[in-house]
């Protein structure tokens, strides 16, 4: 393999790393189209990248010292250490492992009984009398442990030359995880085995022994009389061998034993952590349980060093096990068999609730703050038994802080307090139902009212509220749970009351939609639509309302064509003539549909069409609500944006002026709304290049914004930034610098280093100092800008505009050591891929990156591609043409390398 091949591999590998899922796949296919071999290489590298080995944290082990000591002197060959044949009454059969201080052998005991044992022999280090004395007293402590699930210490002593050894029960078994997988144990069977492990650990704790290194490789399963019996091995050996319990503090102060990443508790992983107590074992048990349930460790520490591990343990929460095992995670060997079993045992809702019980239990054991954990291994075992007995587990409900974190993380998907979830459903359903009743005449109303009310009440009471009966699901019930239950029960429940079913399904569908569960949402809405359509006809407002629901759902899914169709149906009905608008008779539903349609056109760049719809909506809103109503003003604001895209500046100007005036009259000069309208107006003038007007407005709003909203309010930040930018353009550098520096300082403090707005503030300073020709300051801020962008672009979720901005810096930085065309190329490739090759800016940057790495042919191709996407006469178009001209004129350049040796 030659050197350029490695470089190109690297470039594509890095670009692929920036992409995820489908876009990575597309990217790889694109490579294949050009070079199948390269594609195979990149796939192999990506696969290797995901493997756990070669972690920088790996070489941290007690075994290191002995490995080093055993290393030969540089000149002389290694003397082979003599392997003993016999230790006391034990004949050594096979060396099976080596640890920090000792070597483990399988040995045969000849007297008083003949049996296999495991013997751990201390390596050839002389022990002081004191150490040996300690060793013996510790042996006694170990001997106290007598539990069927702990591999017993059978004997301890020292060899003729004074080397201490331990003899342990030899466990003829398989590793716990392997055993469970091989025997395809169900979740409940796994939990049963695990409870025995907890009991063993509890036993040791009662004897004052902390294991501190519980992990799957220390847990074996042996079949005793045909019954699976877990055995904890290496129990306390590390601790008992080397230190007394009373010495813990002293020893850990000096660095201490760290433990195994993936299982070690946060407090134990902190090298400064002085007091590790039995709850550290509870955490490790939680981690083992997690892996038993999901096939995965709570955290992925691949590639992490000790500092990173400590950081993750202290700051991140593990995903709930059920979320881990359900994800499309082919590597997780989830024991699915159990699921079927549990499903058969009860309704799906009940099953889900059981899965959540296990989530709570596992996460409680894994709490960062040990006071939130189970206080003892026995409590963990007891809660698991409650799970097995279908009783309410103690882990539920969780601590308040935990609940809030979870809520934030899963968005709105889970966990509203039970009564609230029910209330939402009740209100939604009753609302729909009232709407229906209103549409009918008075005589029918009473009848329908009574009938539907009874049905709906019955449904809510018998079918939904039953879900929160005491002892069934606990006090906390998630919205999703209630919803799933409702969805399940509504089917076939109302054969003779289609309207009740329609109303319920509408509520269910729309609630699913707001939770982001689109497929279920669509299914229920379509069924509801069908029922309304059949019972009430296509023109009925309830039917149209369903079209509207579906339209907004499709828009949320990005199915714009479907959305337009549905919204047109919600709007254009025979019963409501289109010119009703002019007479201010358009109903709320049609107006809402109109606005949605306008937004769709706007979003897809059809600004003229959007304008027409906005104008209609505007008239309707004005007639219905008045000009100053926030809903009317919102439509006006969107219209102004459309005008700006159409470069119809004066029309947009008129709207902005009106918006400021309306707000001023209704709310006063210093009201936040007025201030916001002024800043938008000013930003508009800046975009138009009308600097004087912009300045007047900025200055008018700045002082009250600072006073009323405060220095850190987004509106104030925007005003300061824009005024600084304006001064920059006017060459008033001193004033500009002052404002922009202040702005950056506040943004950094309030929004953080990597917030887009902070990055923009930094960029403005780079531009300012470049304009000022302040070389030193410019270089300083440019460096900082590049560093920040590096952090921002690190990872697959980076924004396209940031990647392009960074690529731009890497291609053109005046500080030449910042230039890195290779990196720019990776970024540009990722940006182009993320925008489906449809973004001309991204393509333009890619073309220049190809040029910079010395590939003018590709540069020309890509520049042409970009040219086709841009309108003639636009700025991008001109730049691309210039690029093409220069590419054709200049001879190909040699590749630029930044730091490769």
């Amino acid at each position, binding site marked *: *393999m030659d050197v350029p091949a*490695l470089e190109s*591999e*690297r470039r594509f*590998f*890095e670009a692929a790393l920036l992409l995820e899922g489908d876009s990575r796949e597309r990217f790889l296919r694109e490579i294949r189209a050009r070079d199948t071999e390269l594609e195979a290489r990149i796939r*192999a*590298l*990506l696969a*290797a990248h995901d493997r*756990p*080995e*070669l*972690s*920088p*944290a*790996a*070489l*941290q*082990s*007690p*075994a*290191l*010292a002995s*490995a*080093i*000591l*055993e*290393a030969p002197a*540089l000149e002389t060959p290694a003397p082979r250490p003599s*392997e003993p044949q016999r230790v006391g009454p034990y004949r050594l059969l096979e*060396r099976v*492992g*080596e640890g*920090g201080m000792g070597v483990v052998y399988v040995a045969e005991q000849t007297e008083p009984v003949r049996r296999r044992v495991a013997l751990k022999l201390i390596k050839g280090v002389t022990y002081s009398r004191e150490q040996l004395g300690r060793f013996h007293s510790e042996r006694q402590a170990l001997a106290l442990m007598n539990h069927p699930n702990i591999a017993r210490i059978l004997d301890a002593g020292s060899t003729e030359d004074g080397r201490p050894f331990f003899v342990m029960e030899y466990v003829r078994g398989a590793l716990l995880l392997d055993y469970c997988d091989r025997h395809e144990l169900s979740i409940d069977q796994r939990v049963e085995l695990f409870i025995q492990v907890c009991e063993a650990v509890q036993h040791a704790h009662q004897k004052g022994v902390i294991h501190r*290194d519980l992990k799957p490789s220390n847990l074996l399963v042996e079949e005793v009389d045909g019954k699976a019996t877990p055995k904890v091995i290496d129990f306390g050996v*590390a*601790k008992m*061998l*080397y*230190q007394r319990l009373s010495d813990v503090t002293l*020893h850990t102060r*000096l*660095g*201490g*034993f*760290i433990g*195994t*990443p*993936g299982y070690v508790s946060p407090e134990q992983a902190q090298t400064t952590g002085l007091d590790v107590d039995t709850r550290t074992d509870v955490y490790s048990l939680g981690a083992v349980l997690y892996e038993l349930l999901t096939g995965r460790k709570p955290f992925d*520490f691949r*590639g992490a*060093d*000790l*500092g990173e591990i400590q950081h993750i343990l202290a700051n991140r929460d593990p995903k709930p096990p059920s979320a881990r095992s359900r994800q499309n995670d082919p590597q997780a060997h989830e024991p699915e068999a159990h699921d079927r079993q549990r499903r058969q045992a009860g309704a799906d809702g009940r099953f889900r609730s059981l899965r959540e019980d296990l989530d709570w239990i596992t996460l409680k054991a894994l709490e960062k703050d040990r006071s939130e954990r189970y206080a003892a291994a026995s409590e963990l075992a007891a809660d698991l038994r409650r799970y097995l007995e279908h009783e309410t587990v103690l882990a539920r409900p969780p601590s308040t802080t935990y609940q809030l974190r979870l809520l934030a993380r899963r968005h709105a998907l889970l966990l509203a307090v039970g009564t609230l979830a029910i209330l939402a459903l009740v209100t939604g359903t009753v609302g729909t139902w009232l709407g229906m009743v209103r549409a009918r005449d008075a005589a029918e109303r009473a009848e329908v009212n009574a009938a539907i009310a009874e049905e709906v009440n019955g449904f809510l009471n018998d079918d939904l509220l039953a879900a929160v009966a005491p002892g069934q699901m606990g006090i906390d019930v998630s919205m999703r749970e209630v919803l799933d239950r409702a969805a399940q029960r509504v089917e076939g429940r109302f054969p003779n009351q289609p309207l009740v079913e329609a109303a319920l399904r509408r509520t269910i569908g729309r609630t699913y939609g707001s939770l982001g569960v689109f497929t279920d949402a669509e299914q229920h809405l379509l069924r509801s639509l069908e029922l309304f359509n059949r019972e009430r006809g296509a023109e009925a407002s309830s039917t149209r309302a369903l079209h509207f629901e579906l339209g907004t759902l499709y828009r949320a899914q990005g199915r714009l064509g479907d959305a337009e169709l549905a919204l047109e149906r919600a709007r254009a009905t025979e019963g409501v003539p289109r010119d009703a608008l002019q007479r201010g008779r358009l109903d709320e539903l049609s107006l809402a549909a109109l606005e949605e349609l306008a937004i769709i056109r706007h979003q897809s760049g059809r600004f003229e069409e959007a304008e027409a719809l906005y104008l209609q909506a505007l008239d309707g809103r004005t007639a219905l609500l008045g000009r100053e109503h926030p809903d009317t003003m919102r439509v006006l604001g969107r219209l102004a944006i459309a005008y700006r895209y159409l470069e119809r500046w004066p029309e947009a100007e008129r709207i902005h002026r009106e918006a400021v005036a309306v707000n001023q009259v209704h709310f006063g000069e210093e009201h936040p709304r007025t201030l916001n309208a002024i800043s938008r107006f000013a930003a508009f003038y800046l975009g138009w290049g009308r600097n004087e007007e912009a300045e007047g407005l900025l200055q008018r709003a700045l002082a009250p914004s600072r006073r009323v909203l405060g220095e850190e309010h987004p509106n104030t930040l925007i005003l300061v930034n824009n005024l600084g930018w304006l001064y920059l353009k006017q060459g008033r550098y001193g004033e500009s610098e002052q404002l922009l520096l202040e702005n950056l300082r506040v943004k950094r403090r309030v929004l953080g280093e990597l917030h887009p707005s902070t990055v923009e503030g930094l960029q403005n300073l780079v531009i300012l100092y470049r304009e000022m020709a302040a070389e030193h300051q410019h270089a300083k801020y440019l460096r900082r800008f590049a560093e920040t962008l*590096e952090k921002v672009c*690190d990872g697959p979720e980076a924004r396209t505009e940031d990647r392009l901005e960074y690529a731009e810096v890497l291609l053109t930085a005046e500080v030449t050591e910042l230039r890195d065309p290779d*990196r720019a190329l990776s970024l540009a490739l990722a940006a182009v891929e993320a925008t489906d090759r449809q973004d001309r800016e991204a393509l333009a940057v890619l073309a220049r990156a190809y040029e910079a790495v010395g590939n003018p042919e590709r540069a020309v191709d890509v520049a042409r591609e970009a040219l086709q996407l841009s309108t003639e006469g636009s700025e991008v178009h001109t730049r691309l043409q210039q690029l093409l001209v220069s590419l054709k004129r200049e001879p190909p350049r040699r590749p630029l390398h930044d*730091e490769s*040796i």
Partner: protein
Amino acid sequence: MSQSELDDLTHLLRSVRSDSDEAREELYERVYRELKAIAGAHLLSERPDHTLQTTALVNEAYLRLAPGDEQWQNRAHFFGSAAHAMRRILVDHARRHRSLKRGGEAERVTLADLVILTEEPDLDLLALDEALDALAKQEPRLAEVVNLRYFGGLHISETAEILGISLATVKRDWAFARAWLLDRMS
């Protein structure tokens, strides 16, 4: 260490900087001896359960050999040597253990034989050694990043400082080199 020995070392590090093979070899030997001395002291100390980490080990060796010498060029040579020494020690160790194992050559020697408290049961050290040599022939810097990070136990920032490259470059070098090595070893 006596004052004259210290002067000696400073002198030695300077000569390494001036690119003398002899000085480099000598530095390597000193570091190697020092690592062994620290490991020995470690096992005899009153805190034998203390987990020895490459990071701590290498840094301790540096402090013992070169107190007060904060010049980064010197640090770079030192840590380079230390990482190579660690690699040699571990690879030798693995090689010896392979010959001890029944069956001999055919068996892979993994870190699991060596290190019970790590999570790298499947890493074949000898294969890694070989792959690293191959990588060094093509991209010496990538191999050096792996040496420093993996065998020298250095953090990203230290590696960047010692090689005089940016943090981001070290991260990218590491990611690519790691994938390349693992792929080659498989």
